[in-house]
């Protein structure tokens, strides 16, 4: 499992791996926003949390298509099923690797991107906190979608269609928590804790669902 995690990390950081691409895509989304909205700093700062979250969601989906597809194509998936121990545990390892190269860098880049959007310090901190606990959910939900579409040639689009609706609760509470952090009477903690619980929930059922789909799809 640790070996699988290390290998996935090293593959993602090489040429053709998705780590840097996801971060650049995130930058592109965040930078495109002011062009679409116009130079209204007040408005930009207000919707900053939402922009950061939408960008993270889209950037997170970007690399998901390849989560199992490479392994499926070169026969690694067969070996994982044959001798790698429990498949859900291996899926979990791959999700953690995916999060470490997408969700985590996206979270860490928030202070810079938040400044681009003219957000206040508190909002930036709240965005970082919610993305840190919310992006794992994207990886775990995405794993199920990636497993379902693994044998399809152009599964990326279908994957996004399948995964995005399931990510909406995470998005609602994530953005809600950021908004609550800046608007005074609203409490920050309840939506924040809901995001954590969603991530934990999907961390448990995601790998099992994905393992089931992989077994069904691999013939």
């Amino acid at each position: 499992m640790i070996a699988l995690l290390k290998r996935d990390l090293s593959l993602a950081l090489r040429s053709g791996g998705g780590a840097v691409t996801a971060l650049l895509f995130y930058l592109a989304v965040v930078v495109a926003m002011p062009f679409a909205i116009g130079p209204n700093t007040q408005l930009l700062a207000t919707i900053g949390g939402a922009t950061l979250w939408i960008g993270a969601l889209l950037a997170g989906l970007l690399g998901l298509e390849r989560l199992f597809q490479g392994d499926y194509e070169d026969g690694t998936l067969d070996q994982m099923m044959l001798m790698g121990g429990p498949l859900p545990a291996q899926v979990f390892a791959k999700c953690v690797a995916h999060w470490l190269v997408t969700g985590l860098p996206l979270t860490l880049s928030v202070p810079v991107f938040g400044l681009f959007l003219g957000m206040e310090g508190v909002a930036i901190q709240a965005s970082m906190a919610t993305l840190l606990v919310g992006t794992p959910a994207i990886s775990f939900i995405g794993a199920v979608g990636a497993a379902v579409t693994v044998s399809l040639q152009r599964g990326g689009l279908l994957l996004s269609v399948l995964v995005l609706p399931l990510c909406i609760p995470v998005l609602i509470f994530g953005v809600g928590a950021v908004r609550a952090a800046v608007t005074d009477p609203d409490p920050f903690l309840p939506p924040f804790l809901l995001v954590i619980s969603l991530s934990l929930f999907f961390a448990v059922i995601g790998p099992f669902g994905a393992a089931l789909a992989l077994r069904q799809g691999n013939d």
Partner: protein
Amino acid sequence: MKLIGQKLSVERGEDLIFSDLSFNVSSGEALIIRGPNGAGKSTLLRAIANLLPLLSGELTVEDPDKEFGETEFPQLCHYLGHDNAMKPAMSVGENLVFWQKFAGQPHLDIEEALEMVGLSGLDSVPYAHLSTGQRRRIGIARLLVSYRPVWLLDEPTSGLDTPSQSQFEALMKVHLEDGGLIIAATHIPLDIGTFKELIFDGFVRETAP
């Protein structure tokens, strides 16, 4: 150890690939599966490896000496399919080190395994730079870096030239002499001493060695 398949049937989609297939192989024996393309040789190997579900029938492992304890059968197998399960972006050495760690039960060193397949000194070369035959030989080296008593081989010699083919036959012989068990699907006659044959030709029959 003895592997017994009784009245196996496998379906893919809606099609029945084969039915009522029976065989048995013991340690030190090889079972060669022959038959035309599309007869179901690969399907049988994948079903034995538990990568495909059985529609009916039973696969049993007799292990009277409890040599392998409670280990489940798939964990005792090496499966060499059509693909070699190597990442083009990593070097040969990195690939093999990964598989050794992943599979556990280290057997040969990476260096030794590469020497056995005639590719010593290639461990730092990216896998993507290798030719088809060389890639296959790295796939074979994977069988050597971790120990598994059962080898399930699907067209193992595809892409190999004659010298590497005889090299591989020698490796198979050594595995059998060490008490291993081989089930291979192939078209090419293999020089590995005596073996059982399972022939797919419309109906399935088993011949004695």
